[in-house]
């Protein structure tokens, strides 16, 4: 089955699940989503393109905690994405690739070789720890100052990583992390198909858990503390909310989720290096924000809805050249994507979730009203 159909079903079902008017319908949507997640890899035409959906979804849910719930627009989530990717390879399968061309023949297989679950926990813990260290000073900034600072962190991260050399004896190091070397991951399963299925379900389950986590946070004291900080930090403080503690906790949580997302990506591509085309692609920071904006920032379902919409747009743009038999369209992909994002943010600033308002069912009214008000 075409991925486009599966993704479109994801959009509809997540919208149905998010509406609050009809409880039974909501539960049906939830069940449908579950079914879709389980069935997709077996009916899809291309498993490999389904996995990135969950990778971005997971990272977007992470961003939603700090950017959506707490109102701190982190612009450098790729830093934690890359750290998580590095962590999982380093702990899960740290092979030292050949240091020079001459030694290509003998790959030095000095793995840390920890069990994968533990490697994945490290992929959450290490970005979380770094986020704590970065967050304590950076979260003192607000608004665009905070955004720029996090962007700076993201630009610096690969440079830092590439300058961390080898650990252990110089001749026979325990492991090396470096721009020149990078790290190679041992595949999960013997065959590519099995590998993809495992990664798919790992990503999907994590994303379901992450949405459940968002739901849990949004209904608890912690979540309301974050909302209060977003709305007015000073007023929140006066009401007794420890803003410093809460926003750091949110930043750390976001980094952990983003790190795990990066880790899955590392498993998909089997290697990491501190470069743009490996894992430190700055577009990733932007995509996680765009996903939340498309779906609905600061809501429980927004990031999930946005994830499907984002995937849908990308999938359509990917197929445009072949549909119209015009390879030149490929170059216009990013332009069209950007245009769609601008229009969506302009006319549906609170995301597609706005269309299924709390009170009524599905309504275009908000959309048409926004168009009318913006057209003058």
């Amino acid at each position, binding site marked *: 089955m075409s991925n486009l159909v599966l993704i479109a079903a994801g959009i509809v079902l997540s919208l149905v699940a998010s509406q609050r008017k009809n409880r039974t319908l909501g539960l049906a949507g939830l069940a449908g989503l579950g079914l879709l997640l389980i069935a997709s890899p077996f009916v899809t035409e291309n498993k490999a393109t389904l996995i990135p959906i969950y990778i971005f979804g997971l990272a977007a849910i992470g961003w939603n905690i700090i950017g959506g719930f707490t109102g701190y627009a982190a612009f450098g989530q790729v830093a934690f994405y890359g750290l998580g990717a590095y962590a999982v390879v380093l702990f899960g399968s740290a092979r030292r690739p050949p240091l020079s061309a001459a030694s290509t023949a003998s790959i030095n297989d000095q793995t840390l070789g920890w069990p994968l679950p533990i490697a994945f926990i490290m992929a959450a813990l290490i970005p979380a720890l770094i986020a704590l260290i970065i967050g304590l000073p950076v979260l003192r900034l607000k608004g665009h100052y905070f955004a720029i600072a996090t962007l700076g962190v993201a630009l610096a991260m690969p440079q830092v990583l590439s300058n961390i050399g080898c650990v252990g004896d110089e001749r026979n190091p325990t492991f090396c992390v470096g721009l020149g070397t990078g790290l190679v991951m041992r595949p999960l399963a013997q065959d590519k198909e099995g590998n993809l299925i495992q990664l798919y379900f790992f990503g999907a389950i994590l994303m379901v858990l992450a949405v459940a986590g968002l739901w849990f946070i949004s*209904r*608890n*004291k912690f979540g*309301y*503390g974050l*909302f*209060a900080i*977003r*709305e*007015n930090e*000073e*007023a*929140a*403080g*006066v*009401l*007794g*909310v*420890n*803003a*410093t503690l809460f926003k750091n906790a949110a930043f750390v949580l976001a980094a952990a989720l983003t790190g795990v997302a990066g880790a899955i990506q590392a498993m998909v591509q089997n290697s990491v290096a501190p470069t743009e085309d490996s894992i430190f692609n700055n577009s990733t920071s932007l995509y996680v924000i765009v996903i939340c904006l498309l779906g609905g920032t*600061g809501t429980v379902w927004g990031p999930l809805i946005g994830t499907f919409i984002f995937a849908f747009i990308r999938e359509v743009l990917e197929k445009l050249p072949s549909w119209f038999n015009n390879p030149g369209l490929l170059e216009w992909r990013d332009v069209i994507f950007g245009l769609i994002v601008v229009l969506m943010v302009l006319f549906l600033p609170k995301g597609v979730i706005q269309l299924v308002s709390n009170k009524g069912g599905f309504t275009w009214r908000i959309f048409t009203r926004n168009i009318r008000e913006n057209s003058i």
Partner: protein
Amino acid sequence: MSENANNGVMLKVQGATKRYGGVTAVSDISFEVGPGEILGLIGPNGAGKTTLVNMITGLAKPTSGTIHYNNTLLNEVPPHKIGAMGIARTFQIVRPFQNLTVLENVAVGAMYGAGGAKRSANQSFKKAEEVLEFVGLLPRKDDQADQLTIVGRKRLELAKALAMEPQLILLDEVMAGLRGSEVDDAMQLIRDINKRGITVLLIEHVMKVIVGVCQRVVVLDYGRKIAEGQPIEVMNNPVVIEAYLGKRFAKSQKQE
């Protein structure tokens, strides 16, 4: 009673001074608030009333001087701890959490204020409903905070502060913008709050309110304390009249 340990003083401000660069917003102000009291704090615009409240609630650190609450020095305590210690305030320029409902706004106060530690989210919402009923906003609990009128928003500020279950509440111009009958309602509300055992520091422009509810008044002008005493007595004080209505008016009053 624990009050005995404080010699009947709940809040003690001693020589509080706040300078912003070359501007002295508050200069060497001292006063005390006893438990159960309603103390008025008045003064013309720019007299330093809000700066003083900011210092008491930790939003501004005093340049010099000390502020004690139940014998605890507040100078270096962050706002959220002061809130949890039992001091609540409203903002003159209201700061509702606009994208939250009225009920959620108030629930945040119930979650993190003096009585918040022992409460779950659900219990906080119950507490918030109680408080909303008390201030008369219960019918609007599910509205977004930004849908309220200015009067409603002032009430919301009050509800958020009350939900914290404070011992001391600082009300920063909660009457501004209210009409005659609304002022009467609000005055009764302040008396009711006080009857619940909450000490009130009332910052106000409306003289009728000060005379109507306060037992004692402190008057500020240009960051200094110029008078203190019972409302009627203070209002007849020439220095106070001069500060409010200008020298010429004070003189003409004297001649009469």
